């Protein structure tokens, strides 16, 4: 028990102590009238006692501050019965309830992914999940990126402090293609009976400064198909069927050559703009065309590394960004909204 020389302060202390024990939020004691009145009364004290009085009031305040800290740090306060369905002394209307369904929402990126996955499921593709932390081998080596090749410069990886068992920095993968090697390897024996048909949706990362059009964190969907006697036409028709089904209309398509070390040949898949039917609008920057997917025939080195004989089997792979699809669909003006956690954005997506 503390003792204060000044009777007024001593009385206030006892009062505050009682109040403190009852409080649920202990920090409220510092805003108690008893204490604030005492603080206000300092200036009313006779000049000769004022300093001493002020000092003691301050001591009192500090005492409760340290009590608050103690409770926060270790004391078990207001133990409640966690096994109960609700708290004590509540009327039934105060008992827990669900919030109004009207305010619920599903993130637009996930809504879109669900939609895309559904179509690929129906086309016979199975889903594998990606990894948000990976190594140099899966990001590059397993995908036929030569050591020190400038192709690596197109991917600005976040590098981790920790090293993998080959002495390279672990990294935040910059494409979902990092999963290709694992999936091919895990399914290499299945191939003798049926093709590998997989899609990999996932979150990927690039070390670039963010603005309305660039995010360091974004979503991709990767696809791979390996079987016997697969042609470029198989790849093109698969993507056409998917895109027509996703946009629910017959689009026009063409390709553009591109370069990825893990596919040969590689190209960009370009579709006529589904929002203006190729006439030209804001979404397609007035060109009537939208580059939507990077793709190609899987490089034989990638198959060989995964234990698949490229003279018996071949296939194709593709990858595309999800964020841009969603932005185009809704006309979202800033990519940063996706990870902003802002309800005024999120609640628009039911």
């Amino acid at each position, binding site marked *: 028990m503390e003792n204060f020389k000044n009777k007024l302060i001593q009385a206030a202390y006892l009062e505050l102590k009682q109040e403190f024990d009852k409080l649920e939020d202990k920090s409220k004691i510092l805003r108690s009238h008893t204490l604030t009145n005492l603080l206000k009364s300092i200036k009313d004290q006779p000049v000769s006692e004022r300093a001493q009085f002020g000092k003691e009031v301050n001591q009192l305040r500090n005492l409760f501050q340290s009590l608050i800290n103690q409770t*926060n740090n270790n004391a078990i306060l207001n133990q409640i019965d966690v096994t109960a369905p*609700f708290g004590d002394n509540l009327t039934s209307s105060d008992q827990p309830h*669900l919030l109004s369904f009207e*305010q619920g929402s599903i993130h637009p990126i996930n809504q879109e992914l669900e939609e895309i996955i559904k179509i690929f499921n129906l086309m016979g593709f199975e889903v594998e999940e990606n990894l948000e932390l990976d190594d140099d081998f899966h990001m590059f080596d397993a995908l036929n990126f030569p050591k020190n090749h400038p192709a690596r410069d197109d991917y600005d990886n976040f590098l981790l402090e920790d090293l993998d068992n080959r002495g390279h920095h672990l990294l935040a993968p910059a494409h979902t293609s990092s999963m290709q090697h694992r999936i091919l390897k895990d399914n290499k024996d299945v191939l003798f009976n049926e093709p590998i048909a997989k899609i990999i949706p996932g979150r990927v990362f690039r070390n670039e400064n963010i603005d309305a059009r660039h995010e360091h964190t974004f979503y991709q969907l990767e696809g791979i198909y390996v079987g016997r006697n697969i*042609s*470029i036409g*198989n790849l093109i028709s698969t993507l056409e069927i998917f895109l027509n089904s996703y946009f629910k209309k017959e689009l026009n398509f063409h390709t553009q050559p591109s370069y990825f070390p893990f596919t040969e040949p590689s190209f960009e898949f370009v579709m006529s703009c589904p929002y203006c039917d190729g006439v030209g609008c804001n979404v397609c920057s007035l060109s009537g065309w939208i580059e939507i997917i990077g793709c190609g025939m899987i490089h034989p080195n990638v198959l060989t590394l995964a234990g698949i004989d490229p003279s018996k089997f071949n296939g194709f792979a593709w990858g595309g960004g999800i964020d841009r699809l969603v932005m185009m669909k809704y006309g979202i003006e800033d990519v940063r909204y996706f990870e902003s956690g802002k309800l005024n954005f999120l609640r628009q997506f039911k």
Partner: protein
Amino acid sequence: MKLSVKLIQKLVDFPLPPVNELVDVISRQLGEVEKVIDLREKYNKAVVVQIKSYQKIEGSDHLNLCQIDDKGLIKNIKRNSAGLIQVVCGAPNVREDLITVWLQPDAIVPSTYLKENFKLSARPIMNHTSYGMLASPKELDFSEEHDGIYEFGPEQNYGCCLTDIYDLDDQIIEIENKMFTRRPDCFGLIGIAREISAILGHRFHSPSYYTISNIESYKNHKLTVNNKIPDKVLNFDFLLIDDLEIRPSPNWLKFNLIKLGLRPVNNLVDLTNWVMYLTSQPIHAYDFSLIESDGRADFVIRQAHDQEKLSLINGKQLQLSNQDIVIASKTRALGLAGVMGGLESQIANNTKASVIELANFDYGSIRLTAKKHGITSEAVTRFTKQQNPDQILAVRQTFIMFLRQIIPNAKLIDEVVPSSPRQISKPLIKVSHKQIETILGFKMEIDDLLQILNSAELKTNSSKDSLEVEIPFWRTDLSVAEDIIEEISRIYGYDKLPKNILSRTVKPAKLNLNLEIRQKIRRILSSSGANELLTYSFVSTKLLNSLNLDEKSAYKINNALSPELNFYRLNIIGGLLDKVYLNHRAGYDKFVFYEFGQVFDKSFGLSEKLGNVPNFVNRLAVVYSSNLKDKDDSFYQIKYYFKYLLSFFGLDQNVQLKLNCHDKYWQNQAKSYQKGRLAYIYYDDECCGLIGSINNLTAKAFKLPTHVAAFEINLSLFTRYKLITSYQKISKYPSVNRDLCFEVDKNMTYIELFSAFKTVLEDHLKDDYLFSIQPLDIYQPSKTSYKRVTFHFEISHKSRTLNDQDVNQIIDNLVGRLLLRIQFKLI
């Protein structure tokens, strides 16, 4: 890579299609076109004129009033009686008879074309109207020079548009460099012209000067080269040239470089750049006088010494390390090989003799050096694409041909080449017709195949089963059969290949369980008013501290964009709590957030299955927050959501909440929850999550209101879902309802009472009765040692109607049995 349509036209022997068609073909069959610049528009209002007279403007220290002559080319402009146009100009090199470039009053300054598009006008300067302006090389986008207006030589015709001379009525097509990551030859105009020929169906013939035959030798023993790293420098040619006369390049060369975006320097440097732009092989020129001693120059190609210093042409001073390759004299580094030349030995106006270096460097080393020192250059762009060491002879021939044209008096007096005789390797790639047919999806006629490959100067031998393709010295990207098939399909046109739809069996695709679970949870939570968020996988030290978590167990990012994104998150709730304050501030009083995500923690170790990379756990986190001033029921709110969610998976009976936990990981996670208001989530003996109110310290750090609670669980919990949840038969007979109020010691937990009651009910009634109990109310008067828990009890018999008396008897009976288990009083 920029290409000029006119220069390409000179390299091919058929008329190119209109530019828009050419761009289309390039985009679809060579590489994406970034932009097309029409020089006719850029220099639309630029006219070659002569200054006839000039006179100082009174009151100005530098402005002159010039009268210029366009030979009457431009109509509708004010002229003096002599037909001259008046322009005010402040350049110091204004003089009579100077032939220069005039921009008309409504011209867009070329250096701002497609950027700020700065448009001129006729405007008064110190009381004199200036009709347009005389332009500096910088304003014309010719070079960085801005000291005076551009000067043509006296032989230049004037009174014509700028685009009428030196092929400036040209269009520049810029192709994305990324497209040519593996096409070293496409960083040269010859390579691009070859590709364009092939895709337009014409056979390409490399220019006669780009050849490896008729190599002349020049031996004079003034040069030596000691290559100490033959594994990194595979081939080189050093040529010594004397009797140079350094001066500005002839205009055709100057303007070719300007069109391609290069800055003219002097005839020798321009020559090296021009040959580079044709062949894609970077070339460097040294001033012989600055490196020779006793009339000899001895070069060493070696790795740099640690901390060796070198000043580059661009003025940058470098401190090198032994990963860098340098071209050195016996005493010091002269240039950073394959990246940029040194300042000290660069070509000057008085250079009389020069050493020309043609060399091939290991592309990986060049890439590392350029990255480390942050240097980009035309040489780096090209060398990192893996130039073929065998092309050096052809480049040498090209260089000598243009040297004789541009600096006719120069003499080649010495050379050094590698000591072992050079042989051009001609690798062969064999491709089976079967494989070509498989990948193309149809059988292409042999003649068509050969035509395609031959048009790109790929020599072929065809047999019954396969093709043999000889790989020319300018290509390093062709190594396997698939590379050849790419060439065939690309040049033929991917879009023309038959679109064969894959066939499949009726076997349905297996659904991914985790995904199915997430989809179901999304539907449940979002229809209960909750909002799905996505937050970053990366968090700050501050956020981890706010959760009382030790950053030592988090994976740290070395090159994070900001300290806000330093670590991989150690849980999902942190990111959600971080979004609470901003939404309350935006006016939302009460909400529930949820997020699915991967959590990495060093304590999870490595996953062998994933290839020895860090293991992770899939999680779901849900956060409830309210800033309304009612009683804090946050714990029960979040628990309500939790139980509600579990009930959809038939798990509510199997999952238990426990006050203690032996799992170190979850004990740690509990540090952001409030003691006495948290529980560990158990399934069997496995702790798989945590539920509770957020404690004051964490709340304060995130600026949370007091009513915030959360749960976070492993998603794997839901994989134990029951396909069929329990069903209770419905009685045909009416049920009787009673509210039963138990007074128990205040320390007895609800679950003790509930379980005991339920056990007794099940033991005693299960065969003949149907029943249910629902909690109604918990009442605890202050300063008492008891509490009262009221249940709503509903009972019916399976085969008859119950009356009050029956129910009273049943309750009496139950009470008796329950008293054997726990202490209570029925009120």
